[in-house]
């Protein structure tokens, strides 16, 4: 024991040291695998559920656009045309497919296969081209959400599989339609462009996307210049005294204030004091700008700090004024960092729900907002609203909205990364 040389002792310990290193690496790999696993599961689940929302079910009918129904006055006036009962026309055409359906109860069941919105699309077509009146058209009309769900789960409408909201008779009719090739699934383009609706098959994400876009435009326009200027002043010009220290501490504190507080602030100031439009992207953007501002300032200051002081000294030593030194050299060099901070702040604002609830952006809004003062909702709020809806078809809509929100977030973060890589400078 006692005649162990130093190298013997080292060798003895070496094995144990390597073993513990291997163990540590294994723990690390396990942790990463677990984290990635959860993430993959979550994303996979959302995607699987959401993908079907990008498809919609349509039923083909031959419609005789009866002038007596659409335009009894024969004036072709827009007002008259838009009041006509197009839904009734479609219902009648569908009944023509199943002539043996006679009693009232069955007729109602048959009508229920169609979406409430089927008539709207037909009306739009007729209004666009009144020359269609009097002709017979073959039109793919929107099916109801129950049919849509049943078709997606069980595309052959097997008797054995019971779909919610579809009874045996309806199932038989659908099988019949399927057999005659009168029912199909197509890409749901309208999902991306239309606003919210009570009918799941009509509800789209367009209104929420537009609302989020308008809000973020206001947020970016306010928080980036304000944040950048604040950061430049605090970092480059402000004297270091107790006042700036208090400001600094408070900015850091504001960054960690729960977002709903900003919502309450917006409610009491922007809505109650300034009487701005409730539910408007303008107010939403203002609130989100307040929320993002501390993040942008902190990121901006970090970016300014990372510019080596030798660059400032170089500029000052050739006789640049402090303002020139900052605007010619320091600010351009810190811009990528500042923009990255701003984009990450924006991404956070995009995913924010709570403050928007406070200022009324949670309302049920059918129209796609066209301006900063129109009532609007936002993507995460839309997800919240749909998740709350009882219709089963909203489940897939919710997942699809999440997919779209995640898509936007990934894009924004990607832009931040690309920008950082591209403008990264070495000195």
């Amino acid at each position, binding site marked *: 024991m006692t005649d162990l040389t130093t190298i013997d002792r080292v060798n003895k310990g070496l094995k144990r040291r390597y073993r513990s290193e291997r163990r540590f690496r294994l723990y690390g790999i396990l942790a990463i695998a677990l984290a990635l696993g959860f993430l993959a599961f979550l994303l996979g689940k959302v995607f699987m559920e959401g993908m079907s929302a990008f498809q919609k079910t349509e039923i083909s009918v031959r419609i005789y656009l009866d002038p007596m129904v659409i335009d009894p006055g024969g004036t072709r006036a827009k007002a008259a045309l838009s009041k006509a009962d197009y839904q009734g026309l479609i219902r009648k055409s569908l009944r023509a497919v199943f002539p043996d359906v006679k009693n009232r109860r069955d007729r109602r069941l048959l009508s229920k296969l169609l979406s409430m919105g089927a008539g709207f699309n037909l009306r739009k077509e007729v209004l666009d081209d009144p020359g269609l009146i009097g002709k017979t058209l073959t039109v793919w009309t929107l099916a109801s959400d129950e049919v849509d769900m049943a078709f997606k789960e069980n595309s052959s409408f097997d008797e054995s599989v019971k779909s919610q909201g579809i009874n045996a008779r309806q199932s038989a009719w659908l099988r019949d339609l399927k057999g005659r090739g009168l029912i199909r699934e197509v890409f749901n383009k309208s999902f991306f462009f239309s606003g919210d609706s009570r009918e799941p098959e009509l509800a789209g994400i367009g209104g929420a996307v537009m609302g989020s876009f308008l809000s973020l435009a206001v947020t970016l326009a306010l928080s980036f210049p304000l944040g950048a200027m604040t950061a430049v002043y605090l970092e480059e010009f402000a004297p270091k005294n107790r006042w700036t220290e208090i400001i600094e501490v408070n900015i850091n504190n504001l960054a960690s204030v729960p977002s709903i507080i900003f919502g309450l602030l917006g409610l009491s100031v922007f809505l109650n004091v300034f009487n701005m439009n409730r539910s408007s992207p303008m107010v939403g953007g203002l609130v989100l700008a307040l929320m993002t501002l501390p993040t942008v300032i902190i990121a901006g200051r970090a970016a300014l700090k990372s510019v080596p002081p030798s660059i400032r000294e170089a500029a*000052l030593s050739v*006789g*640049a004024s402090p303002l020139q030194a900052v605007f010619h050299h320091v600010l351009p060099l810190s811009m990528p960092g500042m923009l990255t901070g701003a984009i990450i702040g924006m991404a956070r604002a995009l995913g924010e729900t709570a403050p928007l609830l406070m200022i009324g952006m949670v309302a049920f809004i059918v129209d796609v907002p066209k301006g900063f003062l129109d009532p609007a909702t936002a993507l995460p709020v839309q997800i919240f609203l749909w998740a709350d809806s009882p219709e089963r078809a909203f489940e897939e809509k919710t997942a699809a909205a999440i997919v779209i929100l995640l898509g936007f977030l990934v894009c924004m973060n990607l832009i931040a990364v690309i920008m950082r890589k591209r403008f990264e400078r070495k000195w």
Partner: protein
Amino acid sequence: MTPIAVQSNDLEPTILKTGQTPRPERRGSSTEKETITHARSITARGVNVFYGDKQALKDINLDVQSNMVTALIGPSGCGKSTFIRCFNRMNDIIDGCRVEGEITLNGENIYAKGIDVVALRARVGMVFQKPNPFPKSIYENVAYGPRIHGLARGRAEMDDIVMSSLDRAGLIDEVRDRLDAPGTSLSGGQQQRLCIARAIAVEPEVILMDEPCSALDPIATAKVEELMDELKKNYTIVIVTHSMHQAARVSQWIAFFHLGDLVEQGETEQIFTNPEDDRTQAYITGRIG
């Protein structure tokens, strides 16, 4: 002090006349004069510098003569860098730094009220320890100073200033065909000469060099030293250096600092051969430092 004229190769720093030194001839004037006139360019009287409560420099009195190289030497932390940064008021940007006493540049107190620091820095250029070119093109690095001061009318004149500055900094042959390349793509020694070109592009009266060769290899160092020898014909140069050998090679006047005191100053030869103070003796022979 008696005004006398001295030969150009004479190291004797004497006063020809006091007061305003004629501004060095504009760039490129290479007609070697028979006599170089040495005048007091910078005088420091009773300079105290504080960082917060800590005193970094104690009652410094020093005259810097024009058209020669004055070296500030001393062990690390002795205040020589602090002192050189007083000459262009670079210490102003350090929080808590306070300068007392009087420093005059050609008779004008640069710490007086109403002195424009930006204008002062146009007259007193500086080269730093670590080469710090702007992350822009070589051309832009040199053109920046003249541009913000409005020294050039038009592109042709600016080209002129840039080319002649690079020429005088001994860099032109190496960069002539890549003026658009980033300044940071040059080697360390080239970068430092680019910084010198940038400093002389605004035609300062004095060039301050804060350990300009400490990040360079011996060959690059030799080039910069050669350059200093050339530049002192037109400019007053103050250099901070850690290297005894460098001080001996390039300077004509040496000031030795120790722990915030200016221990001794004198002609280079005299300091090296016959120092009066024991601490100087100890430092130049390598016993402290």
